């Protein structure tokens, strides 16, 4: 840990704020422009946790995103909550990145920085792979703890102690810093930015990083660096209830049973 206190990096992503997501029929990627967007909810939790740890132990919270320049709004939202500075990795050469290329770009940036703790979200609401956090930890060769519900640091021993969700219960895991953790719902209740926070976010530093700044071979970035091949993307047919049974519950149940019988989905064995 540097003298200036904890260095926390939170990876964040801007995601569409609406359900009716449109997909480009040719490139099979999301049509992102002109859609209202928001901060991925798991990342909002990540930023909150980063700020809380800074408030407890001192230090600095940096938020990083890779995305179109529009994603700067998501950075500003984090700065308004109280993060100290932001970095946006934005470049045409990065368009079309899959999870591998995204994690790689984040890695190339983060490896140049000082950090004690990296926080990612469990998943993002639009692609929902949950790959980025673990992949990034592997690239950086640091321990990872996923789906964290509760976390504290032991500053003396430079360790992270986390309660993580596991099948059928909670596991308590310890690891040395620097480490990477991913958040889950319930870790905290993110604060709402205040008016002063919003005003000051406009004056905080947001650094723009290009593919060239990242360094390395361009073939590792963007569509070229993305081995994932999307065979087909389709908009799920919006599910409408076929029938709604109203009225007296008992009668309604009888009606449902009758319909199921008629459809031969159940049989009557009297």
């Amino acid at each position: 840990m540097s003298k200036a206190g904890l260095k926390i990096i939170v990876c964040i992503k801007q995601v569409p704020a609406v359900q009716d997501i449109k997909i480009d029929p040719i490139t099979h990627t999301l049509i992102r422009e002109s859609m209202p967007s928001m901060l991925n909810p798991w990342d909002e939790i990540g930023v909150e946790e980063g700020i809380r740890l800074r408030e407890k132990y001192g230090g600095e919270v940096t938020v990083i995103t890779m995305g179109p320049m529009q994603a700067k709004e998501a950075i500003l939202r984090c700065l308004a909550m109280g993060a100290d500075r932001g970095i946006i990795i934005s470049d045409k050469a990065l368009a079309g990145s899959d999870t591998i290329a995204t994690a790689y770009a984040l890695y190339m940036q983060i490896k140049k920085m000082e950090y004690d703790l990296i926080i990612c979200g469990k998943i993002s609401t639009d692609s929902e792979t949950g790959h980025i956090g673990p992949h990034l930890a592997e690239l950086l060769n640091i321990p990872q703890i996923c789906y964290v519900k509760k976390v504290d640091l032991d500053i003396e021993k430079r360790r992270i102690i986390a309660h993580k969700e596991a099948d059928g219960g909670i596991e308590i895991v310890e690891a040395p810093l620097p480490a990477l953790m991913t958040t889950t719902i319930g870790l905290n209740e993110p604060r709402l930015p205040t008016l002063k926070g919003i005003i000051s976010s406009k004056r905080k530093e947001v650094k723009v990083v290009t593919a060239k700044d990242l360094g390395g071979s361009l073939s590792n970035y963007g569509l070229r660096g993305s081995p994932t091949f999307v065979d087909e993307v389709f908009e799920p047919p919006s599910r409408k209830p076929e029938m709604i049974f109203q009225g007296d519950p008992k009668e309604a149940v009888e009606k449902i049973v009758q319909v199921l019988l008629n459809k031969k989905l159940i049989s009557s064995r009297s």
Partner: protein
Amino acid sequence: MITMSIDEKLSLNTYKVYKENHIIVDKEKCITCIDKPCIYCCPTNTYSWENDDLIISFEGCVECGTCEIVCPYKKIRLTYPPLGHGIIYRYG
């Protein structure tokens, strides 16, 4: 399709729905309010009357302010959903 139901109209819109209701109604007068103009003047069908109670489905509200003005007893107070929540017009 030339005309559509109000629910279909609202489903065209983009909302960032906030968890809390931003329309504050003091329902003390509602039961004796004869015409209940909030119900039929609201352009988004936010209000309805069920089982002697005024139901407020605030999710589709476009924050226009009509209900506040038409309530004869001035019992409605429209606040705005915080942090850019609520209606987000993409055309306007």
